[in-house]
């Protein structure tokens, strides 16, 4: 079968001729666990400019209708691009384990 995917092959016979995967959410697990720094948006300061949403290399930032950004921490790898490009400098990068709210 063309483009058939078996994610848990038991033997060679179950494997395709070359490695490929289907685009599904989290095919290789919750990559958010790779994070060393966690972005935290200060919504009082945020101007809803969408610059972070545009630049996020993992496309894990979604927007509300009014442009309010939300970061999916299940898959955010903590690269910090959003904090770097934020014109208001209102995204803080906090070392994992150092934020009481996150650990709560």
């Amino acid at each position, binding site marked *: 079968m063309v*483009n058939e995917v078996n994610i848990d092959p038991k033997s060679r016979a179950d494997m395709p001729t*070359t490695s490929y*995967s289907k685009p599904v959410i989290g095919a290789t697990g919750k990559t958010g666990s790779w994070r060393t720094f966690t972005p935290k948006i200060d919504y009082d300061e945020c101007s809803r400019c969408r610059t972070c949403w545009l630049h996020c290399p993992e496309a894990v930032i979604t927007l509300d209708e009014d442009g309010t950004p939300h970061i999916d921490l299940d898959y955010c790898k903590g690269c910090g691009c959003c904090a770097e490009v934020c014109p208001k400098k209102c995204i803080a990068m906090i070392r994992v384990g150092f934020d009481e709210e996150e650990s709560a």
Partner: protein
Amino acid sequence: MKTELMSANYAAARAVMSARVEVVPAYPITPATTIPEQIALLNETGQWPGQFIRVESEHSAMFACIGASSTGARTFTATSSNGLLLMDEGLHWATAARLPIVLANINRSISPSWNIHVTHDDSMSKATSGWIQFYVSSVDEFYHTIIQAFKLAEDERVLMPVMVNADGFVLSHTLSTYDYLEPEEVDKFLPPYKPPHWVMDPENPVSHGNIVFPEHYQEFRYAMHEGTHNAMKVYEEVEREYKKLFGKYFGGPIDCYKCDDAEVVFTSQGSVAAEAKDAIDELREEGYKVGNARMRMIRPFPVDRIRELGSRVKGFASLDRSVSYGYGGPVANDIRATMYNTKHRPIIKSYIGGLGGRDMTVPDIKEVILDTVKAVETGETGPEETWHDLR
């Protein structure tokens, strides 16, 4: 079928037409240049309706082939020497992606020293990559082997790319007759390519080349090995069908001439292998029991055929127009390795010669064969390898 007079390169461009190739990404390099040049011309004049992609390097050419073949398009390219080496990363990618790309490599010496004439070092350096490799001896054989190569590469049991090698200038730029087949005739032999395994399709998307951990990587490599290995028996079927349809047969993986009662057999690749028939005829007249084994396919290696020959002969005179620097001639090495796991012990002499386009004429080939005849008579195996005509 109609007979035409052309150079091997011009004929290769016609094979692209006959096989209904859909995409040709190519970058010019002497002596392969006239292949893409002719394909571009056939395209511009409406004789070949495919897509010709002008790229900025051979590396890009091979990766454009990979992209095109991934969508299921029949894909071809041509190169030489340093161009083949610049493709290197792509050559290995194509084998692991299991893409049936066909590449015409016009054998040319690697620089430095700058030399545009034939040495087989370029393609021999890719012998461990998984690419199936043919070496041809005539314009007609080049044209038809390219068409056969698509059938072989696209077979579900194979799904590996094929390199068809022809000697620079001696074949690439020399005019000879060949029998051209119209695309309508080839249709009977070569149906359109439909990838049976994976395909780049926006309607059914997959992400290719993802990370594979140690639990599974080795199995993908085994599958590649199996694919190239299977090419030996599949090619037998391909040739049988081709012969039935078009009356063309070039001798299988090893084209033997007067080998039946031979005591010493001369092996070589490319144009020298055709020249050697004259040397055999002369030596036969002089009373020597000698034969010519023209090595058409070196990957997969024709183990069974060599063992069958090796069980009957007293000696192999194996000429490589290439060197595995530090350890002899590449094909001679393989012949020796092939015979080790049998009880037969013919003398296997390795000769290196004809590098940089130096002529290997009938007297040269006779000298090589007679050296092995002498080794068989005296039982002296002599040096590990012999450089013929070394100044």
